């Protein structure tokens, strides 16, 4: 349709646009409509399936309560496309087992700098021992470590097991 003479000036459109923006302005000022999340003070609630930092799980109930879910099979390590995970398995002491199976992970290291957070490890895990939680504040300004050592971004088994999570 050919625009009419009046439409060519676009005056009505300009006034409509101005009206829309001032309504948004007033909504922001008086109804508190803000899309920004003031990050350090307020944090975004992650979706249930968000893939953040990993955690090694323990059995929370049942006959194996308190034991590690990980049986040291190293399927996660072989599934990992970025070669993040190192697993060294060892035999369980039957009197004081770490895990319900025969074996458990003696060493479970994750070089989190290499991780691409694809979630393959969690899919590969037969016992659902490794899961990805909602922790995403993984950056730091020095190589110090949650352990304080040189390899800050190498998470050992105890870091992954005993890690506190925000959500």
């Amino acid at each position: 349709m050919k625009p009419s003479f009046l439409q060519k000036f676009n005056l009505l459109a300009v006034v409509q646009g101005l009206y829309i923006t001032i309504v948004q302005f007033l909504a922001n000022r008086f109804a508190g409509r803000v899309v920004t999340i003031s990050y350090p003070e307020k944090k975004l609630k992650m979706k249930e399936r968000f893939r953040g930092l990993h955690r090694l799980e323990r059995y929370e109930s049942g006959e194996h309560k308190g034991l590690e879910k990980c049986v040291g099979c190293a399927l996660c390590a072989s599934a990992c496309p970025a070669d993040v995970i190192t697993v060294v398995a060892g035999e369980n002491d039957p009197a004081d087992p770490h895990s319900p199976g025969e074996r458990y992970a003696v060493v479970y290291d994750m070089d989190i700098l290499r991780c691409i957070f694809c979630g393959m490890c969690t899919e590969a895990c037969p016992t659902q021992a490794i899961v990805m939680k909602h922790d995403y504040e993984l950056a730091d300004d020095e190589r110090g470590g949650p352990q304080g050592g040189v390899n800050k971004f190498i998470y050992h088994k105890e870091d992954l097991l005993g890690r506190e999570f925000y959500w």
Partner: protein
Amino acid sequence: MSVIEVVWMVAKILIVFAVLLLAMAYLTLVERRFVAWFQWRVGPNRVGPLGLIQPIADGVKLLFKQELIPAKADKFVYFLAPAITLIAAFAIISVIPITEHFYIADVNVAILLVLAISSLGTYGIILAGWSSGSKYPLVSGLRACAQMISYELALGFAVIGVVLMAGTFSLHEIVLGQERIWYFIPQILGFVVFLIAGVAETNRAPFDMPECENELVAGYHTEYSAMKFAMFYLGEYVAIINVGMLATVLFLGGWHGPAIFGAGLVGLANLFWFLLKTCAVIFFFIWLRATLPRFRYDQLMRFGWMVLLPLALLNIIITAGIKAFIQ
């Protein structure tokens, strides 16, 4: 002139200069906050309460930045351009009557002076574009040149309507003439043309062709860094304040308004009304920026020559006709 008069004059200049410096620094913050609110964002609020120290932080940052001068730059002109922009922007305040008794100078050709100086300010942009020795600033300088020529005409013609009404070029007397009725009512056409041309004159959205980011990086100040960049930036904001004050003086009745602080403090009320009207115009500018997308270059030129200029001429003819045949 007695000594006291000289001292008072110098003091007035210093006061106006300091206030304007402060105002332009904080206008950067105000604009960022307001545009953020228009877009449901928060805006800079981290540096100090409500982000009030942000302009100072920005200034300090810009002062300590490394100064880069392009190898192919024409040094003399390259250094001259930001100075021209800033000086021209600041010079306009000298003839603007802020209240009835507080102004730096009452020049009998004040409007011509304002138009002339604002045209000079354009030289800053054109020379910056030319002297940078780089392609984007050059294109930007060309655009600024064409845009200024087309929009300054409309601006000048819009002002002539007011001059016809008031019968004087002096801004002080123009404001005095608006005692009964503010000129934007009889001059509504001229007011609209003045506002649009004013936006174009200050290179602001939707007329910010000379610095249109997605085509020309940053336009004429692409090659400028540190304080020279800041001078362009601040010159632009002073220009916004200037257009706000001019619109107030020419169309919105200047200092006129109810004496809200009582009969004894008329001067204060006058100052209040002047500042309020200026802020309203500046808010309108920010509102426009938050609303309208940028014009295409050919649309911009066509709008200037085919719409604004005829409208301004029509306004002059109507005003002159009424003046000649009715009064």
